[in-house]
């Protein structure tokens, strides 16, 4: 088996992208089932930053530089999603529609 340097580099980058994909997916699922709306929004943000990293690695590994534009789109969409979420939460007075699991309070201590 011949290991060309360029092919080896592409393989290393692909393995790194796969690792980040697994980390992002695990964190997203964990956050999603955890409760509060802010946590769920954070899992979407995670898809933004993790997705950008994965797409950058794929762009270099495959030599398809147009993938960089997709990464740029991910970054912009994640930012707009968060600001839209903030606006929607501000319009609703009872942003307390947060689902908090037992024994967990955002201020740290257990609920009274």
């Amino acid at each position, binding site marked *: 088996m011949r290991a060309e340097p360029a092919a080896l580099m592409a393989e290393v980058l692909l393995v*790194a992208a796969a*690792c980040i994909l697994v980390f992002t997916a695990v964190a997203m699922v964990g*956050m999603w089932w955890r409760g509060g709306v802010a946590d769920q*929004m954070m899992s979407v943000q995670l898809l933004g930053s993790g997705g950008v990293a994965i797409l950058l690695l794929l762009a270099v590994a495959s030599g398809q*530089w147009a993938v960089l534009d997709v990464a740029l789109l991910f970054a912009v969409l994640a930012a707009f999603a968060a600001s839209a979420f903030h606006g929607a939460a501000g319009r609703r007075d009872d942003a307390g529609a947060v689902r908090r699991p037992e024994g967990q309070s955002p201020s740290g201590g257990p609920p009274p």
Partner: protein
Amino acid sequence: MSLLTDLVTITCVLAGVVFFLAGTLGLLRFPDTLTRLHALTKADNVGLALIVLGLLPQAGTFLDALKMVAIWLLVQLASGAVAQLLAEVALRSAHAAEAKE
């Protein structure tokens, strides 16, 4: 020269993957929303910065390298602002829940 740049790339990318792992562990293990927000917006952005740094020597043209740096800058700016917005929503909903009880 090529060997050196490849080594830089592999080192930085692997360090970035380690930071993403740290961010994921923080998100899963930290006790409340604000500390999780901290893990999300700090660790993952350092990981992304290291990955961009590592990929820069592999960029095909100067314009591609510039675009990667621009994406990184955009993500930095956005995540700094987003962290404030999400923290505000989390705090407000905590206060609303306390007032309701």
